[in-house]
């Protein structure tokens, strides 16, 4: 693969990766959010695959494919299943508890989009010294990874629904993975495997928790957890 084409494709993947994070923040429909999250998984998987093909490191390609399967296939599937479980109950009782959409985030959508803009600028400012150490196409895309980490964290902080929080957590993790690939062309295979397994477990646990929460409170609004304190 020629250098120019590689840069172009890598930039496109990173752009799509960042864009997906922004759209997750933008949309309210949880189904749409999960779909976008799956697309982000594809973009994320493309990064190590591209790196691997470019540097002829086939293990990276394998890792990339693995990540693709996990992030674009398995995790979205699990989240979607949790979502159907929640909305099925809702249809059965004929009540609209608003489980399928993030109706009232703590920070309104317009403001959170503007915050995302500020976070991206912050990520750029922070990553700049790192980029200048070794300005290659990969490191130049480093701010993208950081920005997604920050946006994911922000989603985690401001969303009310348990499921959108799960998505926020996954966004955060995606960002960390992307940063790892861009900064150091990936972590050792075993670490990557461990982390992925961890994430999978976390999602499974969260999924169960969400269902339990819904059974206990009738909603997955995180604010209701405050009752546990009293």
């Amino acid at each position, binding site marked *: 693969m020629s250098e120019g084409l590689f840069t172009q494709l890598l930039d496109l993947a990173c752009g799509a990766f960042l864009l997906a994070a922004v759209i997750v923040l933008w949309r309210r429909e949880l189904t749409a959010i999960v779909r976008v999250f799956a697309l982000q998984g594809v973009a994320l998987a493309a990064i190590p695959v591209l790196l691997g093909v470019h540097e002829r490191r086939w293990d990276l390609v394998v890792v990339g494919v693995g990540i693709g399967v996990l992030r674009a296939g398995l995790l979205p599937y699990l989240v979607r299943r949790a979502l159907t479980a929640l909305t099925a109950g809702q249809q059965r009782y004929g009540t609209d508890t608003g489980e399928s959409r993030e109706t009232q985030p703590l920070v*309104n959508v*317009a*403001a959170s989009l503007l915050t995302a803009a500020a976070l991206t*600028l912050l990520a*750029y*400012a922070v990553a*700049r010294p790192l980029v200048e150490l070794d300005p290659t196409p990969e490191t130049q895309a480093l701010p993208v990874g950081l920005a997604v980490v920050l946006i994911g964290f922000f989603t985690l902080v401001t969303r009310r629904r348990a499921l959108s929080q799960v998505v926020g957590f996954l966004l955060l993790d995606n960002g960390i993975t992307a940063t790892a690939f861009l900064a150091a062309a990936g972590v050792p295979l075993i670490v990557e495997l461990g982390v992925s397994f961890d994430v999978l477990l976390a999602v499974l646990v969260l999924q169960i928790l969400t269902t339990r929460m819904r059974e206990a409170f009738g909603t997955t609004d995180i604010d209701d957890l405050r009752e546990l304190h009293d």
Partner: protein
Amino acid sequence: MSLVPAALATAAGLAAVGAPAGAALPGVARVRASGVCTAGVGVAGCAAGVAALGGQRWAADFPDLMPLAGAYLAVDALAGLFMAVAGAVIAAVAVYGIGYATGHGEHGVSSRAGQALLPLFALTLVLVPAAASVTTFLVLWELMAFTSLLLVWAEHRGRAPVRAAGVWYAVMTHLGLVLLLAGLLLLAARAGGETFAALRAGAAGVSPTVRGWVFVLTAAAFTSKAGAVPLHAWLPRAHPEAPSAVSALMSAAMVNLGVYGVVRVGFDLLGGGPAWWWLTILALGGLSAVYGILQAAMASDLKRLLAYSTCENMGLVLVGVGAAGVFAAYGDEPLAAAALAAGLLHVVNHAAFKALLFCAAGSVLRATGERNLDLLGGLRARMPLTAGLFAVAALGAVALPPGNGFISEWLLLQSLIHGLQVPGVAPAVVLPLAVALVSLSAGLAAAVFVKALGVAFFARPRGPQAAGAKESPPLMLAGMGLLAVLCATLALVPGLLADGLGRAVSAAGLPGDGALRGGVLQVRLDNISSLLAPLWVVAALTVALAVATGLPRLYGHRRRRRDARLWDCGGGAPSPRMAYTAMSFAEPLQRVFDDVLAPEQDVDVTPVRESAYLVERVRFQRRVPDRIEHRLYEPVLGALARAGQAARRLAGGSVHLYLGYGFVVLVVLLLVLAVGW
């Protein structure tokens, strides 16, 4: 023989004649005499400024004029620019002021004190940029603040809010003076001299910390004078309450001097500085621009709206100045020159259209006694010339072609957009945000002036005062006409100013020559090729407009226009009360910016006595308080009041105690001196 000293001497002489004439002559004669003298001061000041812009320089010292320090004056192109602006505005506003004050009764602006102060205020506006030593500058600055303060108070008998506005202005302007005094004296002490020439020479040897303090102190004072957030609170109070001619002078000439101060001290005396100085200025400017125009969008009081728009425009100027500083700090001096030129050009443009806007608002106020947009309306039929002049100025203010504001905002955007070639993290992060803030403020400004023009002058009158309005007297119209010509000139041939602006920028220590080129306005830098041809745009628009009006007539049957009723949904003719008011016009914007503005509203429903379901009366009230003022000033004022209460305990009423305080302080002071040396 140089023109500058002759013109300045003329200005001083005219003010010296005008002030006693205003104080002594009776009735209409004093208004005329003082007005003519003020106009003369303006013309002379403008001439001096233009001569300086043309390349003349002049410096002189008068050691005997002031005891101890002596007075130093110097005029370079930078001072000339601000002089010329102030002079031109003064000349036109003075003509307007004669008409405005005639028949205004014995009180207010036409009183003896008012007419005596007007020429003096005009003279200080012209002379402040010429000051060339710390003492001279501070004395002139304080004279300017003091005369303008008394003029703001001119109408205090008529309306209660005037007094409060004056107190705010007095306190804030004097706090500013204290900061300025501290900053400049600190610099003078360290640089080893108090003339600007000595400061310039000695500033390089001053430690960076001290320079930073000097800049922070003076910048706080100067940006407060320019009306930048957060030290702007005096501006939207004092400008609306002053007599309109004075508002015009303050908003179009006095606030500029705040910018002058920042440029003079920051670039010229301190010779630029680290990037954080200028990033602060840039941030203040961007915030003021958006916050000011947002408050203007919420305002229903015409003059308050204009005052907040002044905050916005000064914010834009500060964005230009700040960007220039940032570029210079990162080493791109040509681009810095372009940004500074954009800021200075906006000072000129803003002065022209804002003076005209305030004068037109004054005409409306004089004709109707109303400043509340919701009670105006329909004035275009009753005051067609004023409406037209207001429209010309509003076109300048909305930053759209073919108005004059567009040219400077275009230049500002160009310099910001091309700032990306400057290396460094700060420009890369700040410039996109600055572009966003500038463009948001431009977009909101369009909404604001559509509101001001559409609600006040269009549709039908909503109140009896508006229905009975009459066109202003010829002298007021003449004054406004002069300003309109100025606006049009700046809009059509801004290239005329290019050389002068270049010299002014050079005087600030940046390579200003050739940053702009005359004829068509062109930015010419290493890798920028941008060009704006205002005359061409106007010509093309005129031709297109003629064709668009003419072609349908050729095609259709040439019948005369017939009058028809407004569409009324079949429910009877709509009454003027159904028309949109300023408040309802601003409602969508208020909802969008709810989190920023935090409006207070309450609905009070009174049911009839018989049944709770039948409503007798609904009272709806909405206020959009200045949130910065709310959050920042009220705690400080509260703390001050508490401190004052606490301090009262020191005053026990015993004379011995008071004398004892003085004695103790004296002894302590002497002790400190003895130990210190």
